[in-house]
């Protein structure tokens, strides 16, 4: 059977469970919105923020909320030893990796459909850029976060304190991506020329490619018991 079919079956299974239970999605969107509200209070309700501060606020909310969903995707596989059932199936480990990364990517996109409007309601009054200019940045961060996070969550899922270990291992790796994303977002929110945005998008794309290859190579070892 083709790899595409295997990935589709794995992806559909996870999305079916997630859309039925909405555990990850609701907690991600709610937690992210809560962070935005707290930061709105902290910066002073009604006070306007500049593009640099706004970019920082958006990515704090997206990063911390996304890590909630990431942990849950693998925790479900650990219940009843389901990960072993996948490993003894004809699905190759890299197919499992791609499917899990796509699940995380989808969950991030769905939660951002809530978080970005909330961000604009709370902080958007003086921001000049339109939300549409954020789309390529959000997609690249989602991709980078998913390919890195899927590998790290497979490693941390095998440990006792995985919910603690996951952000501790993941966030340092994501720092370059987040740094470029903050710069790109502040350029987008300030409606600066697209060339300035592109300068940040290129290294972000490179980050995604590098960590996708690393994930593809290391995931089979990360997911096994030995």
């Amino acid at each position, binding site marked *: 059977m083709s790899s595409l079919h295997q990935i589709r079956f794995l992806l559909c299974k996870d999305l*079916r469970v997630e859309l*039925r*239970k909405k555990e990850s999605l609701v907690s991600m969107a709610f937690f992210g919105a809560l962070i935005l509200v707290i930061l709105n209070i902290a910066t002073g309700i009604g006070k306007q923020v500049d593009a640099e501060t706004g970019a920082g606020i958006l990515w704090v909310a997206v990063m911390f909320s996304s890590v909630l969903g990431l942990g849950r995707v693998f925790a*479900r596989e650990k219940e009843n*030893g389901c990960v*072993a059932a996948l490993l*003894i199936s004809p699905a190759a480990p890299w197919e499992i990796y791609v499917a899990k990364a796509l699940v995380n990517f989808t969950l991030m996109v769905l939660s951002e459909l809530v978080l970005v409007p909330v961000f604009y309601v709370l902080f958007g009054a003086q921001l000049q850029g339109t939300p549409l200019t954020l789309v390529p940045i959000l997609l690249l961060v989602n991709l980078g976060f998913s390919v890195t996070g899927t590998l790290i969550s497979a490693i941390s899922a095998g440990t006792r304190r995985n919910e603690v270990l996951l952000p501790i291992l993941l966030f340092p790796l994501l720092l370059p991506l987040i740094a470029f994303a903050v710069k790109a977002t502040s350029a987008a929110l300030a409606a600066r020329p697209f060339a300035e945005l592109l300068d940040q998008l290129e290294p972000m794309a490179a980050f995604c490619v590098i960590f996708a290859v690393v994930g593809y190579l290391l995931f089979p070892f990360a997911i096994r018991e030995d």
Partner: protein
Amino acid sequence: MNQATPESNKVDSSVFLTISELRKSYGSREALRGINLDLKRGEFLCLFGPNGAGKSTLLKILATLLRPSSGTVQVLDYDLEEHAEKFRANLGMVSHQSFVYQDLTVLENLEFFAALYGVQDSQSRALELLEEVNLVDRYDMPAANLSRGMQQRLSIARALVNDPALLLLDEPYTGLDEHAASVLRDQLQKLHSRKRTIVMVTHNLRRGLESATRLGILAHGKLTYLQEKKDIDATAFEEIYFKHLGAA
């Protein structure tokens, strides 16, 4: 391996599985200390042994979940480690963990695994198996709502979804009521009559003795006893087993 899978190439070979000098260590602790074993197609081997004897480790290696520290496992002359991905299509496993998704329904679980194994018409296959394990009336129930015995029956159906040539059973009778245990026994007898090779590890002497064609005892990571069941009666085997337990 694309054209010649272990299953398709040498169907009539008498020796199905060969384990040679198999060792597995966890740090300084040796879980398996040189296992040698040949299994013919259609044999039903039951391995008994005390806790920590290495039974589950051996099954995990056969299931390609663990890599051995040294030694080889060959299935129809093909090295299991080298051709693991192709061989998995012919493998089934029942463990004391159910390997089923709690948030999916009974039918969705089987359909998912059937699709993963490339079974044509996964829904028909799933319903056929649910009929066999007497769960067809619970097809739309989430697996989380099933009793332990029912989950194990679902687990048996899941393991059979690809009609495996090699079935591995790790303490499959744990937590089963009499009904579920008889369903499992019937399924095993059916598979055995269709020349499927079965390896079961268990503490349950009665269940092991009623189904197996070959009996083995694993102690301290070594296969200390191996005999055709027809060559020994149940009482004599029980005595030997308890002697081995005492020694372990």
